[in-house]
């Protein structure tokens, strides 16, 4: 099983689905950011799996995965800074209480 591309791709799809559930269902903004990290990791696993099983890609799969990891670090930095800035104004991390624009 560890030598079949489908197993890795299905695993990455499951991780992506779990992350999308967390993003849609959690109330806490930081939990939503953690779910986004899970989804990014799922996509990254599929990229590395493609690079490891398709010879035409060569080393490009691994290079793209490294780039994705770096961009995910940048995204986490800015996202958490935004959450902290909102928390300083609204005094709550729960996203369903960020309803200023609907009032």
């Amino acid at each position, binding site marked *: *099983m*560890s*030598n079949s*591309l*489908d197993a890795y*791709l*299905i*695993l990455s*799809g499951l*991780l*992506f*689905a*779990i*992350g999308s*559930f*967390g993003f*849609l*269902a*959690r*109330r806490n903004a*930081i939990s939503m*950011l*953690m*779910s986004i*990290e*899970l989804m990014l*990791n799922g996509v990254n*696993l599929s990229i*590395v799996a493609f*690079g*490891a*099983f*398709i*010879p035409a890609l*060569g*080393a490009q799969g*691994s*290079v793209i*995965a*490294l*780039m994705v*990891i*770096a*961009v*995910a*670090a*940048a*995204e*986490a*930095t*800015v996202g*958490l*800074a935004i*959450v*902290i*800035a909102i*928390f*300083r104004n609204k005094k709550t*991390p729960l*996203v369903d209480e960020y309803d200023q624009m609907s009032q």
Partner: protein
Amino acid sequence: MGAVTGIAAIMLVLLGQDWGDALFWILAAVMLGSALLVVTMHDIIRCGLAMMVCFGALAGIYVVLGAPLIAAAQVIVYIGAISVLILFAIMLTQTKDAPSRLVFQTQAVPAAISAVVIAVIIALAIAATDWHEVPERIRLATDALSQVLFNDFVLPFEIVSVLLLAAVVGGVFLAKREPGGPS
């Protein structure tokens, strides 16, 4: 947990699978289980710690997959940097009075249904597609990867470094307190 995975490993080896398969199954089970814990647990600090376990198991899967440099980057960046950042943000935003009686929003059930539908669609699409893959993993040497990274991809590499610098400056700017504002 360790005893359970050990027993599972012994059972898998006794069932006739080799160590690569056993490692793959155990790491996949740990990764999916801890990912489910991340999205369902009540205490958000424990969610962050389960996320670290999930990233560690994913690094192990990268090793099984034959990409050790990606696994090292995963450990350094995700477990070392992003998880610590998230744990700090959790500790900065925890409120003492209401540690969130409800973990989920009202749309949790439609979210679960849509997640299952996404997983099923992805699995069906994967099973229905012929990827022209080779039956054996390609083990890429780290020096070959670095040759490609610093010859063909040197411009994206530099752009990513500039992006990281911009993200650091932007993060500091967004998260700092305004002088004279509410502390």
